[in-house]
């Protein structure tokens, strides 16, 4: 089944500068290929040129200047199995990564590809927004670092016609930070119909520095500012979890689609919000 019939040439650049230059020169019908899943599962027959990132050595996970730097072609499996993720936010990011999609897809989906595609149902995008990651792109001449929320507020799709994602940077949060993310799927390996993430600093049961993100709404993942404001400076308790669950159900910005209705999505969001706070208390 030849899905990409018009592809006539492919390039294997050796440097990210070369990749960005090829991307700029090759025009509209060119695609950067990281893991290649999106390209093959949802092929665009108009694509004529492919630029493979295989030779760029962007498969890495390392600690630099207090941050975890994850190369763009690092797969979900590589990140999940890395030593850096073992104790990161009490292992909760690792557990989440291991639950996304299936082993064969986790072996193919890359961090850079997930950021670039920003699929509405992406668990990786919700996770990175919740963790307030930075995205580093290379425009052929220089590297540009941008907080992921600003990156998505910008015209990032136009930017990525001229630039290549180099890496994702994660903050190394101290032990006062807690992270939880839930995903609702029809079966274990399906795309989520809703995902919900919370990162919060909990100092003597007081919640601070909180970020809350909802994805697969079914629109793309977004910060949930009202919910962040609701939790700010509150004391973590079972009563708060209950109250927060109701607040989320009533205020979350979700819609219905062919898979699940708006009310059901909102209800699930409320349940996830409550469960995550209850889990924070058990940690």
């Amino acid at each position, binding site marked *: *089944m*030849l*899905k*990409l*019939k*018009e*592809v*006539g*040439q*492919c390039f*294997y650049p050796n440097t990210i500068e070369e990749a960005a230059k090829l991307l700029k020169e090759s025009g509209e019908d060119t695609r950067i*290929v990281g893991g*290649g*899943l999106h*390209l*093959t*599962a949802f092929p665009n027959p108009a*694509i004529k040129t*492919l630029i*493979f990132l*295989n030779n760029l050595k962007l498969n890495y996970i390392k600690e630099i200047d207090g941050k975890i730097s994850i190369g763009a072609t690092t797969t979900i*499996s590589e990140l999940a199995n890395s030593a850096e993720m073992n104790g990161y936010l009490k292992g909760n990011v690792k557990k989440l990564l*291991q639950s996304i*999609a*299936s*082993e*064969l*897809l986790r*072996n*193919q989906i890359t961090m850079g590809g997930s950021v670039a595609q920003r699929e509405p149902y992406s668990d990786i995008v919700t996770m990175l927004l919740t963790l307030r990651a930075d995205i580093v792109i290379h425009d052929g001449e220089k590297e540009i670092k941008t907080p992921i929320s600003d990156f998505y507020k910008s015209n990032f799709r136009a930017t990525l016609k001229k630039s290549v994602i180099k890496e994702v940077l994660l903050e190394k949060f101290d032990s006062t930070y807690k992270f939880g993310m839930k995903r609702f799927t029809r079966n*274990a*390996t399906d795309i989520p119909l809703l995902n919900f993430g919370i990162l919060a600093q909990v100092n003597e049961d007081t919640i601070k520095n909180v970020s809350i993100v909802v994805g697969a709404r079914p629109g793309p993942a977004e910060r949930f500012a009202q919910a962040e404001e609701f939790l700010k400076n509150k004391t973590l308790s079972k009563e708060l979890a209950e109250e927060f669950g109701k607040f989320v159900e009533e205020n979350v910005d979700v819609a219905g689609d062919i898979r699940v209705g708006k009310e059901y999505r909102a209800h699930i969001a409320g349940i996830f919000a409550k469960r995550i706070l209850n889990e924070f208390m058990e940690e």
Partner: protein
Amino acid sequence: MKVHYKINGEEKEFDIQPGELLLDVLRRNNYTEIKGNCYLGTCGACAVLINEVAKATCTTLAAQVNNAEIITIKGIGTISEPHLLQKAFVEKGAVQCGFCTPGTIISAYALLKNNPDPTEEDIKRSIDGNLCRCTGYVQQIEAIKFAIKLLKGGK
């Protein structure tokens, strides 16, 4: 364009179109032990090892993995000399219609190469991308556990 692979230990060169899927290239060249089905990476029937990592060939471009080492189900054992995983699948009734079996064994093989002493959760996670509509997975999990015992016993 031409691509080069080392498949089951043998050097191979194929003519391909740059937009072709690895699944199609391999099956066209008689590696029919790799099954094609969903073309979305969701069923796992087409899994092979690419540079020691289990991947779906239906979502992998042949050009992307130029110069890769590929191992199919026939590369880990033969009918006359089956791998212990293959023996275990037969022994435990984990093969019924057989369509998913090559991909499932490839995924289990990848797990045991990296983790010879997996938990049941590790086993389930390793084959979560290989759909089986016959066994309900119970026999497959039993077979993988049995293979681990056999491998530890050195048989």
